[in-house]
């Protein structure tokens, strides 16, 4: 009994340490599977579930039937752009206090639901790009 527990404890501790960055997928997001093996780096996370976009667990905008690109073709999601702007300001402020520039200040990770239509992905990426987050990573499950 003690042997089993010891082995289990060591195994769990090892997996905990080996992970490095602990990335928790949003509970309402089912990530797509991919063969990519690139490691995920720590960054801002935008979670795109079936019915909402959230950042840091807070709702940014709902993705109802009314969520469509305006007729003028502007793909910008204004609520998301505002939140990204706030996040950038916070990061800049933190970097200034720390006295060294944030190396990954332009990086953002998109955790998108596998059933999300391309239209939404396109708009989220466009908004990130417009907000100055050019380094975009798509989070995927290792398949």
């Amino acid at each position: 009994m003690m042997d089993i527990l010891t082995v289990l404890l060591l195994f769990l501790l090892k997996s905990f340490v080996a992970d490095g960055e602990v990335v928790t997928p949003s509970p309402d997001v089912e990530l797509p599977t991919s063969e990519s093996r690139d490691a995920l780096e720590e960054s801002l996370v935008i979670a795109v579930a079936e019915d909402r976009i959230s950042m840091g667990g807070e709702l940014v905008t709902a993705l109802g039937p009314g969520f469509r690109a305006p007729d003028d073709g502007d793909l910008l999601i204004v609520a998301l752009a505002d939140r990204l702007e706030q996040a950038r300001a916070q990061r800049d402020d933190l970097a200034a206090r720390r006295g060294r520039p944030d190396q990954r200040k332009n990086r953002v990770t998109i955790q998108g639901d596998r059933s999300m239509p391309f239209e939404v992905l396109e708009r989220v990426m466009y908004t990130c790009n417009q907000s100055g987050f050019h380094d975009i990573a798509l989070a995927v499950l290792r398949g």
Partner: protein
Amino acid sequence: MARRRGYRKIIEADLDIMPLMNLFVVLIPMLLLSAVFVEISAIDMDAPAAAEEVSTPRESLDLAIEVRADRYVVRGRGLRERTIARDEASADTTLAAHLDRLRRDHPDESAVRILSPPRVRYQEIITVMDISRSVGLGAISLVGRDPAGSGRTVEAR
């Protein structure tokens, strides 16, 4: 003499493992809860700066895969357009084989554009990106179409 007898005396005592057990009982559920059993990776995308939003491919072949609900269409400059029906189970394998052949015919080529209509699911795009990367076409651009008809691209590294 007395000393020797004392040395031989067997001391019987149970090892008290209760504190250790208590520690394990607390630690193991805590670690189990925080353990991440699914491994998450990243696909890095490199969005062009806003000014160069519509990028023109520099490569000669200008390879493009259109992901439609019912078919893949592979086209490129000087290539015969190839349509692969997606209702067959082997569609992904056929696409991979076709891209592999194209890649072998044009070894310098590593760029591919993935064109998607708005309703295509994210998983389908990721699958096509995987297929492209597996045959060595690693410079992937995602292209959507805005109502004006011009493409907006985001490039994968």
